[in-house]
């Protein structure tokens, strides 16, 4: 199959890669761009370990072709926070023990990031519903929910202080 050039902006940087039309986005991100944060857990869109953000929407990158990402803006876990300046969500997941094996964590935090853009004041129920496309096998979600609610409160407090 003829390879195609795909141009996209990933974590703020312009990228140009060569991909087979059948190549899944997750493999391009992980293997061609070296962004191994998002993981493959099921390849059927059920588990959400591969969640990234594309043009402001949470997307499961294991069931999207890389060529479909042409011209898009993509944010992965690597684009949230930095070692010296963790994102509020990353801080709160650490603080509230919102992770164990870490395999679902990048997808979960990336999803939570979008959720808080969609709904900056979520109830517990909103959070539970909002992350129900992301499976965690270790935590039982209780501390994930706590982490996200705490991050939301912190972000809102910061917003209020700024106003």
């Amino acid at each position, binding site marked *: 199959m003829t390879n195609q050039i795909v141009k996209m902006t990933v974590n703020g940087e312009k990228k140009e890669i060569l991909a087979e039309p059948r190549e899944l986005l997750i493999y391009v991100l992980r293997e061609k761009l070296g962004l191994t944060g998002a993981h493959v857990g099921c390849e059927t869109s059920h588990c959400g370990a591969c969640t990234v953000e594309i043009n402001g929407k949470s997307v499961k990158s294991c069931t999207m072709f890389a060529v479909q990402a042409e011209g898009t803006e993509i944010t992965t876990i690597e684009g949230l926070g930095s*070692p010296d300046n963790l994102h509020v969500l990353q801080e709160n997941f650490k603080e509230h023990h919102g992770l164990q*094996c870490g395999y679902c964590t990048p997808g979960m935090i990336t999803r939570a990031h979008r959720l808080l853009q969609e709904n900056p004041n979520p109830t517990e129920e909103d959070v539970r519903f909002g992350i129900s496309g992301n499976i*965690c096998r*270790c935590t039982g979600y209780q501390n994930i929910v706590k982490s996200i609610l705490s991050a939301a409160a912190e972000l809102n407090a910061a917003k209020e202080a700024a106003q």
Partner: protein
Amino acid sequence: MKDEVTREERVTNLKGLGSSRKRVEDARFTQGKGHYVDDINLPGMLTGDFVRSPYAHARVKSINIDAAMALDGVVAVLTAKDLEPLSLHWMPTLAGDKQMVLADGKVLFQGQEVAFVVAKDRYIAADAVDLVEVEYEELPVIVDPFKSLQSDVVLREDLDPTAPGAHGPRKHHNHIFTWEAGDEEGTNAVIDDADVVATEEMYYHRTHPCPLEPCGSVASMDKVNGKLTLYGTFQAPHVVRTVASLLSGIEEHNIRVVSPDIGGGFGNKVGVYPGYVCSIVASIVTGVPVKWVEDRMENLMSTAFARDYWMKGKISATKEGKITGLHCHVTADHGAFDACADPTKFPAGFMSICTGSYDIPIAYLGVDGVYTNKAPGGVSYRCSFRVTEAVYFIERMIEVLAIELNMDAAELRRINFIKKEQFPYDSALGWEYDSGDYHTAWDKALKAVDYEGLRKEQAERVAAFKRGETRTIMGIGLSFFTEIVGAGPVKNCDILGMGMFDSCEIRIHPTGSAIARLGTISQGQGHATTFAQILASEIGIPADSITIEEGDTDTAPYGLGTYGSRSTPVAGAATAMAGRKIRAKAQMIAAYLLEVHDDDVEFDVDRFVIKGAPERFKTMGEIAYAAYNQAIPGLEPGLEAVSYYDPPNMTYPFGAYVCVMDIDVDTGVPKINRFYALDDCGTRINPMVIEGQIHGGLTEALAVALGQEIAYDDMGNCKTATLMDFFLPTAWEVPNFETDFTVTPSPHHPIGAKGVGESPHVGGVPCFSNAVQDAFRPFGNRHTNMPHDHWRIWKTANDLGMHD
């Protein structure tokens, strides 16, 4: 110098035992910098993929690889014929059986590995898999273990039906072993004479640990140096190295096995799979690294399942409810090969813990293992070996006996608990329970949930239902469990001949920080955090200054790995013991520096002080430095220690759980209104981590009890091989859990810890199941099998005439 920090502050600074220290692992995991097997990309690496059998039982007439080999980018296609000259077409299992690596003449379960394609990338490999032509001749399929024992169809033609198996005589060509514990004759006599006898048959269905990260390996044979490096999803990397050496003939020192970060294990990653072996062979054949990572469907269809126990019980009691005897027989469906991951002498694991938390004077357990055309396995999914089965069995038998006696099940438990003063307690089936205080835990739990109030509310709800005012009913699920974990004493516990000790090696650096390496491997349990805490309290160096490393066999001491809640009981003990060796040498150094006799100094938090003159001291930092820069008479330089710990006994964590559930009888949908979990895991190392383990274990228990299963049709097709059909609960289905605890230290463990990771699963499954069954008890229910998915709950209501 005046010490400006208080003693209390010095204790806090250590972040030792009892501290809810934040996890050191989380910095990398939250930033997407974990390093899992599939993240490994070595130069020139090829990808392997399997041709798998679509049939559950068939003869393999021929395999034609020509079309696959002709595809551009395909490097090799391996079949059993290629592995045979290396004697690698079969491999030994952990249970003393052998298993085909690649189909040798026939296939015995759907999804079995038939050929291994090696190609330049995953897409070419997948294309080539489709091009391999395999001619099959279908054979009769057996998916029912009872039918299997009656059938003329011989599943394992490779075995001599008259010769004994690894665990003694076989009764039939599809029979694997009979394993017994206790006194059958005596038990039968007691039961025959008893006031009250309850009998029940229950099926603990087949399920699967299904960690979020599937299994995989990367093998890299360096032909220049003769060294093989094998990265993989291994819960027991050192054992894998030994097995790889025995299988391949490569000397063990030339093999380095590395378990990088592991994305959950839950028992699935204990065994050795054909994919690991094929990646090694392929790397040896091609001379370049070969990666094999299974997909979810392959994980659910072919790697180790859990449970599949058909259990038949008889329990006898006096009219007052005092239990007098227990009889249990299990027909264990092991699938096509006996690939259970149990200590060698225990083919049914620790199923003989099935007398539970109760003082049962006489008991018998018999287990018959059987071959069927299903995937091999039988691993301990979030439990010590078969302990979940055992606890489910006894906690259901208690409920059934309560029905027989027309008695409250909480009270029935209370009057039969082993009493605090009976510990150490010798159970009828041969275990020595180390410590416990069951009555205290039970009373605390029942009080916390207002048990009497709940029963009143339930009675009102039953009345309202009968009056037609509501279509929901209420269930109160109870369970009290005793686990047996921390395998185990080398005298009776081994895996492939390797005694089940574990190890820790510590090096203190000159500036007072340290590295400790262990024979275990974390899969999310947070070892890097908690083992440093054990050590901090033992050696007085802050946990933040201690690096914990596991999983690299070239650097870590030999250990048997992480499963069966053995890390804290065994490796945690080794850590404490190694720490004590460090402390003993530090004491001598301190005494030298303070110019007093060794006996005149004592350890105090983070230093050695002169007895009676605590203002004169040497901190562990000063001592560490001295170990490297002073010539101390009679002492070698340096400060290192290693401990290999052979536990004198198992540990026996316990707990009391209560689940309050509403059930809609028309939809079969359960709603969990409350779940209270009291755990006693002895000394608590990190309460935050313990709580996290409990949340997670309860969630996996909810899954198993309420819907998760590996199901087959009569043709042996696996009907639950994707996450569409295999139930993994989401945040939407999982409630908030209330956690509580008591502390009864283990008397034989250096720090009194017992292990906790699996308790919530072991106690949780019967608790959720009992809640469902209890809801239907007032309407005539006695026992229904798990998983209680919506359909089965609806069916229970329907069978009880609740839709009439």
